[in-house]
């Protein structure tokens, strides 16, 4: 009956597994400890707050006199909120605050319309590590679903909260949790009169940013390798664009291209062995494929118009791209075997930067009408095209690897913030973390 599972927090992918990663990790940890303990900001639901599975995450018990550097329960609540699949009960409305199962009264939670209740207690051990014991209960079945213990160092507490969020999310929904994934993005700020670009990665909630590259020339279009260990991106360092590949843990990088003209829009193939990219070395902008082993490039589109922003189908048999051969940018799909292209979008005079959903059934892209830009969605089976939601944005969104969320940047005047929308377009959330001049968000694969 009593089934205790020992959770251990895994190190971030690709960091501790290699000997040369030591320095990068040390630098990261130094950065984290330097951060003061702060009150966790609560995620803002901008639309669709009343949807989702009702769940109560009861404030965790903390051993008395203990200063806790992170509000674990609030991080978990934020995560479950931004998944779009849960509706969180505010702690102020709870009738009782049990901290372990023996004191849980199902009736209290039924009265509040809750389907699941999570309890926990956090304790600091003599060795300085923290132990979180947590439980998840199904109210209508009157059944315990999880009883577990997670251990983490002080620096790993946030990661632990994300890990525990994944377990709760996956137990209830049966879908992969995305709370330990990461975000790559670019910031552009003005410092001392000059523009400064930074390529950064952070946790998926925007916390714990780490800078991978800093330049006074543009950086854009980061894309994660399928194993989540590397990024490709475009950098204009030296005054001309080149496509670069960088290992995240070590910071090691190499320039892959520096052709005459465009070197842009690099994306990894699903098998990680090649890139699609946009070059104009032979005339107009066309899609090319570079095999990473040999560095050979092969031209895939051949058209006088602009052809750019390629993105693979998950099965690797085709890719989509943007072309203005019809007179305005529209989405096309090229079959790899036949080399034939067909046009996919017909509504609106600006459809660009399409990406496949992880199941390959739909496309998300930037849709413009009347010079306003939104996230558009195309159901590939029915051919139906619609605006996913109405917050203006003209950047390609990052797609969660579980296919449930899109992340994008919205602008109000000169300030920019990260927002999430569920892929059904019904709920939107604004992340409380701000990164000045943020742009180009890219969502990592699952670790």
């Amino acid at each position, binding site marked *: 009956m009593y089934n205790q599972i020992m959770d251990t927090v895994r190190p971030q992918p690709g960091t501790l597994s290699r000997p040369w990663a030591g320095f990068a990790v040390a630098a990261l940890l130094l950065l984290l400890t330097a951060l003061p303990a702060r009150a966790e900001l609560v995620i803002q639901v901008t639309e669709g707050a009343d949807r989702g599975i009702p769940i109560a995450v009861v404030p965790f018990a903390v051993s008395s006199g203990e200063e806790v550097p992170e509000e674990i329960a609030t991080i978990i609540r934020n995560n479950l909120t931004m998944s779009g699949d849960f509706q969180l009960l505010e702690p102020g409305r709870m009738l009782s605050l049990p901290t372990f199962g023996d004191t849980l009264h199902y009736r209290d939670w039924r009265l509040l319309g809750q389907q699941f209740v999570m309890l926990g207690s956090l304790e600091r051990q003599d060795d300085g590590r923290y132990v979180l014991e947590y439980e998840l209960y199904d109210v209508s079945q009157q059944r315990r679903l999880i009883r577990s213990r997670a251990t983490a160092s002080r620096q790993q507490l946030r990661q632990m909260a994300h890990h525990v969020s994944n377990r709760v999310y996956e137990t209830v929904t049966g879908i992969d949790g995305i709370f330990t994934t990461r975000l790559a993005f670019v910031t552009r700020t003005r410092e001392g009169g000059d523009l400064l670009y930074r390529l950064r990665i952070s946790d998926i909630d925007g916390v714990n940013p780490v800078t991978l590259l800093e330049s006074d020339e*543009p950086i854009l279009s980061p894309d994660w390798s399928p194993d989540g260990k590397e990024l490709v991106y475009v950098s204009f360092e030296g005054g001309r664009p080149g496509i670069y590949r960088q290992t995240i843990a070590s910071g090691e990088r190499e320039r892959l291209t520096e052709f005459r003209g465009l070197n842009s829009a690099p994306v990894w193939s699903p098998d990680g062995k090649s890139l699609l990219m946009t070059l104009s070395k032979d005339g107009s*902008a066309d899609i090319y494929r570079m095999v990473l082993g040999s560095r050979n490039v092969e031209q895939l589109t051949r058209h006088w118009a602009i052809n*750019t922003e390629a993105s693979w189908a998950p099965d690797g048999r085709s890719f989509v791209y*943007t072309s203005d051969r019809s007179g305005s940018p529209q989405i096309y799909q090229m079959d790899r075997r036949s080399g034939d292209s067909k046009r996919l979008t017909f509504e609106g005079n600006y459809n660009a*930067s399409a990406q496949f959903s992880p199941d390959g059934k739909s496309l998300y892209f*930037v849709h413009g009408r009347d010079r306003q*830009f939104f996230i558009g969605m195309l159901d590939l089976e029915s051919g139906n095209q619609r605006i996913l939601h109405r917050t203006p944005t003209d950047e390609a969104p990052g797609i969660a690897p579980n296919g449930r969320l899109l992340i994008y940047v919205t602008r109000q005047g000169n300030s920019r913030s990260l927002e999430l929308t569920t892929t059904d377009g019904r709920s939107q959330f604004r992340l409380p973390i701000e990164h000045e001049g943020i*742009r180009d968000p890219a969502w990592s694969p699952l670790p």
Partner: protein
Amino acid sequence: MKTMNLRFLVMLLLLAFVAGCSTTDTQDDAGLTDEEAAAQAEERAARSRAFGAGSGDGISDEDLSQEERAARDARRAAEEGEDLRQERVIYFDFDSAEIKRESRAVLEAHAAYLNSNGNASVTLQGHTDERGTKEYNLALGERRAEAVKQFLVVNDVRRGQIETVSYGEERPVNESSSEEAYSENRRVEIDYN
């Protein structure tokens, strides 16, 4: 009598006022000192010559020989060209790389200079406004730079003298989000190396 005199005076004053007004009006019409007027006439002439310079169908002048005309045209073109070449930015319409009519004279002046100064070279920087996707805008900026390059090549500039680079929407001159800012940002900058 007193009243008559007064009426007369008032009328005189009114007349004087109206006359004064009309004089001021004529002056306003011209609105210029002699020097200014001359400068404006010169500017107009310069502008009209500039438009004619590249088309080759200016008003014929029978009193001058063909050689004399050519020499005069060349001299004038050089003078005007210097002024026109001060203009280093070419502007474009939304999602367009078409060179506008009003940009032709400036580009012709740059072409003439590059043509007669074989060692000079330029980098054409293509830019877009912030609307639309970044990668498409990179391609659009490149297309704008290439359109300018093509114009120069057609006007006898060697390809080797011209480099192009597109920054897309990454290097705005005006960072605000307004139609005015957008039109300032949709541009090709001509940089002499």
